[in-house]
Structures are given as C-alpha cells and as structure tokens.
C-alpha cells in the first residue's frame, strides 16, 4: 500500500500573543510546528505502515523553511518527502493550494491520500476535500478511526455533529483526519539523527502538470480585500480583592443582570 500524507507547517497559534496596547499580533518568537490535525494524519499512515508495511510519502507546500516539518516526519517514520515550493505557488488560496498539491500527488502512486481536517492558522478545512475533487477520489472527512481489510476496503468512523458515522470505502480514496483520532508518536532519537541524511525531493511548478493560471495568486478565486486587527475593546473594571470581596462583587453583578 502506498500512502501520501499532506502536512503543513503552521505557526503555533496557541503561542501567539496580543500586544495589549495596540491590539496587534506579536508574531516574533512564535514557533513553527507541524499542524496538529496533519500530525494525526501522519500517525494514521505510520500505523498502517507498521501493520501493512505501507510506504508513507509526506508532502508539504510552502517556503524552503517548511522542510523542517518534513524532517520531523522522517524522524517519526515517514519514508519519502516532497517539498512543493515555487514563487508561482505564492499567494494561493485554498483552491489554488489544492490544485498544486493535487498536481504533485498525481505524479505519485497512491492507494490512500491523507490530509488533516484543517490547519490551525486558517481553520478552513477546505484543502482536503478540494484535492479529492481534483483527483476524482471519494472523500471521508473528520476521520476518527480507520480499519483496513488488508486488501482494498477501509471501514472508517467519522465524527458528525451529534455522534458518529461508520462508512465503507475502497481505495483509492482521500480522508481528512482529526488530531484527536490518535495519539501521534514521538520522533525517535535514531529517526532524528537519520532524518537529515534522507533526501527531500523539491518540486517546483515545472514538475507538476497544472496550468499556471490555476496556481498561486492567479489561480485563487478569493482575494483578501483587507486585513485588520479587531483592536482592543476597552477593558472594564478590574478588581484585585480578597475572595470574600470578590464574591460580593460578582453576586451584585449577577443581581444587576437579573441572573439571581
């Protein structure tokens, strides 16, 4: 079995802080991490590798620095890595991103394509299903659990709003995975030591068979018209008092608001 996993390097948004005065983002010193849902996807692939000897190829689109997440994927156990990087990909919205990724995946053999459900820096959850459409693959999103019959069929438990659904689908197909689907393994020390000796294949726009009009800014139907910070809402009253007094203040507020 051959598996392709799409991963993305994202800023750790839980580490992003606001400048309390200006209300702007402090981006400095924010570490870059492997997107959590993508890590869940990689773990799923590695479990299939452990059980069925699957070959796992990871692919990421981004600037050269995005190579770091591919090294991390090697250290976790991925076999091959592709870095999709080109100025022509810059400014891509989700549709243009999915065009590029689908183009790269088309150059590979695959039985299963895995993406994370969504990235924490955009939270759109679009790229996975869009890749599936470009590759004409059936999709199962919000995957919580996957079982493989060893031949062709996947039995998948997926999250729904109010419970879950169990579905069956044959390979090839695409799934989008939740970070909570599994507990991603740690990199191993040996994996880390060897990760930097393995080749990362760098792919530019010339290596994929996708019309340039579908890539990057040109290929993006959506454009950002303006971006702005919400600014700081004027803070209310803050009290530094002992517990008893604090309780008193809260209770009087509850009365004022007719909660009690």
């Amino acid at each position, binding site marked *: 079995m051959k598996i392709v996993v799409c991963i993305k390097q994202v800023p750790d948004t839980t580490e992003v802080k606001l400048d309390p005065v200006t209300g702007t983002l402090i981006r400095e010193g924010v570490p870059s991490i492997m997107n959590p849902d993508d890590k869940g996807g990689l773990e799923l692939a590695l479990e299939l590798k452990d059980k069925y000897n699957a070959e796992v190829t990871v692919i990421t689109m981004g600037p050269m620095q995005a190579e770091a997440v591919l090294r991390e994927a090697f250290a976790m156990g991925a076999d091959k890595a592709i870095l999709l990087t080109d100025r022509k990909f810059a400014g891509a919205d989700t549709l243009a991103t999915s065009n590029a990724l689908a183009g790269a995946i088309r150059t590979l053999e695959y039985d299963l394509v895995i993406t994370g459900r969504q990235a924490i820096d955009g939270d759109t959850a679009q790229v996975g299903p869009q890749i599936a459409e470009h590759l004409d693959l059936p999709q199962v999103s919000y995957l919580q659990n996957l079982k493989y019959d060893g031949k062709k069929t996947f039995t998948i438990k997926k999250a729904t709003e109010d419970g879950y659904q169990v579905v069956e689908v044959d390979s090839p197909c695409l799934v989008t995975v939740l970070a909570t689907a599994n507990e991603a393994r740690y990199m191993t*020390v040996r994996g880390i030591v060897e990760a930097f000796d393995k080749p990362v294949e760098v792919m530019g726009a010339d290596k994929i068979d996708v019309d340039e009009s579908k890539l990057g800014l040109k290929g993006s139907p959506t454009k950002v018209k303006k971006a702005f910070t919400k600014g700081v809402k004027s803070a209310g009253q803050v009290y530094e008092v002992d517990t008893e007094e604090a309780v008193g203040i809260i209770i009087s507020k509850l009365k004022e608001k007719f909660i009690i």
Partner: protein
Amino acid sequence: MDFSLKIEEELFLQMIREFAEKEVKPLAAEIDELEKFPTELVNKMGKIGLMGIPVPVKYGGQGGTNQMYSMAVEELSRSCGTTGVVVSAHTSLCVAPILENGTEEQKMKYLPKLASGEWVGAFGLTEPGAGTDAALQQTVAVDAGDKWILNGTKIFITNAGFAHVYIVIAMTDKSQGTRGISAFIVERGTPGFSIGKEEKKLGIRGSSTCELIFENCEIPKENLLGKVGRGFGLAMKTLDGGRIGIAAQALGIAQGAMDETVKYTKERKQFGKAIAKFQNTQFQLADMETKVQASRLLVRHAAYKKDQGMPYSVDAAMAKLFAAETSMEVTTKAIQFHGGYGYTREYPVERMFRDAKITEIYEGTSEVQRMVISGNLLK
C-alpha cells in the same frame, strides 16, 4: 566559536521537551511521594530511544551524540530529578563502559537490550569504606580458573532494585593497589548475588538506591570488562562521563525551579503588587538565571568535547561542580520566593530542593571535583 545547536539537536530538543512535558511532568510528584521507580517511563523512553542515545545503531542504539544525551537528562530532570538520574546512571555508568571497554561479544550481548530499555543498567563502585577514596575496595574477585568468584558489598547503587546488568568494580590483586582493581559485568539472578536494603533518601526518591551483596558469587570468565588490573582507571573514566550526566541533571533541576519561580513571582501578590515587581526579586532572578545559563554552557561544552574525542575530564568536573552548586542555590532561593507555600508539597520547588542536594554528592562530591580541577591546574 559556534554556540549554535546542530539542526538535529534542535529537533531533538523539540522532541524531548514535548516528551518531558507530557509524559514525565505529570508523574513527578507521585514518583517522589511514593518512592516509585518509573518503570512505565523507562519503557516509554526505551521505545523512542532515550535509553541508548549515544550507542551506535549496530548495537541497537540510536547513533546520537553525548550532547543529545546531556540535553535529554537536562530536560527530563527539569520535570523530574528521579527520571533524569535513572537515565544518567543507566547510560553513563553501565552502557558507556560496556561500549568503551567491552569486547565485541559483550557489546552484542548487552547493548541492544540496554539501549532499548528492556534492561536497565547500574554501576557498583562505592562501598561502606570506599567513598571518595574509591581505591579502598574491599570487594574481591578471585580467579578460579574458568570463573571469577566475587565477595563483598556495594552501597548506594542507583537503579539497583530494577537493573538487570551491573558493572561491578572489585579488587583482583590487593598487592597492586589501584592497579589491582578490575571491572566485571554481573547479571541479575547470578547465584550468590543479591540486592540488599533499599535506602530511604532525602531526594530523587524514586531512583531505587540499594546495596549489592556478593557471597561467593560466581561469574563467567568472559564477564571481565576490560583488562585485569585496569578497573580503577575504567571506573574513573566512567565517572568522568557520568559527571556530564549529573551536571545535566543538576542543570535541569535548576531550570525547573527557575520555571516555577518565574511563574510564581508573576502571580503572587503582596503589598498590592506581584512580587515580580519588586527589585529584590528582579535582581535575584537575574543572578539565578545567569548561573543557570553558565551551567548550561559548561555542560554543553563538556559534552561537545566528549563528542569530539577531546579530553574532557576537567570540563566535566567543572560542569558538575558549578551546575550542582547552582542547582542547590537556585532551588533554595526558589523556596524562599515561594515562602511558606514553597516549604510544602503543594509546590514542586520543595521536591526540586531535595532532589538538588544529591548532585553535590554522588559521582564525586563537589570536593572531589575541586580536587580534579586544581590537580590539573597544579600538575
């Protein structure tokens, strides 16, 4: 001079921090309170390679560096001093001497299981009458033709209750003094070998510290480690390496106490403001942080020299001396900043303070380190 970490060391640090934060930190208080050896953690650490970092891949290890190993001990100790020393004693005092002195057969037999964490290692040098003056070995090994017969008692042996492989130092020819000392590999379960009483300790309470008792313990001839009469040198060299580990442990404990103190001083309010707002706090924190960072540079430098194959004995002594004393100072001040709360088990600095003390004692007291450093200076 390049002080930057290598790319693989950066990635390693990312991994070990995540592991320590998620797996070790939540267990630290319980390990201490119940004096519980962290068996589960050893299994987990074995799985990801932390029990055999500097061991070559061909012996089932990870092919990592001593730098990575010292970072691992530091980051583990930052959360839990016990877990740090379990890895340190295992790696520096058992795995390393086999790797550096063992025959190919010995390496193939012991290293894969040690490096995977399936077996834990320990080291027996100290005796009731041979502490800092380690040459006064009373344990004897007699050549009985096809085997060695060991008699004697070792004390204060880290990991003793849960180890499978022990490096044991014993006198093979008393007339030769330190040149009559040899090293042996002893396996758990060897007839005549038993584990004695477990010590009740001030700190690192989960790290099973026991006596090793040898009563006509017969060990196979091939379990001699290194050459006959070279055991003292082997032990001293082993301790040189061990000191990097203990220095890293001391550093980690100090860093853990810094983390707690910085957090606490920002939250704790007296006289209407956070105690971090007082200059007394700020200046003391600055001094503490500076010493912790100085310790780190000494530890990294010693590990770097070991990785480069350069002599590092004095560097390791300096690292251990400074990091241990810094650890004691920082944890003491950490409690002071926490006030009455710091004296209770509600806050981890109380444990860190107790854990820190041993780093000034084992694998060569601070006085021994000063002897090593000044000895080199005045030779």
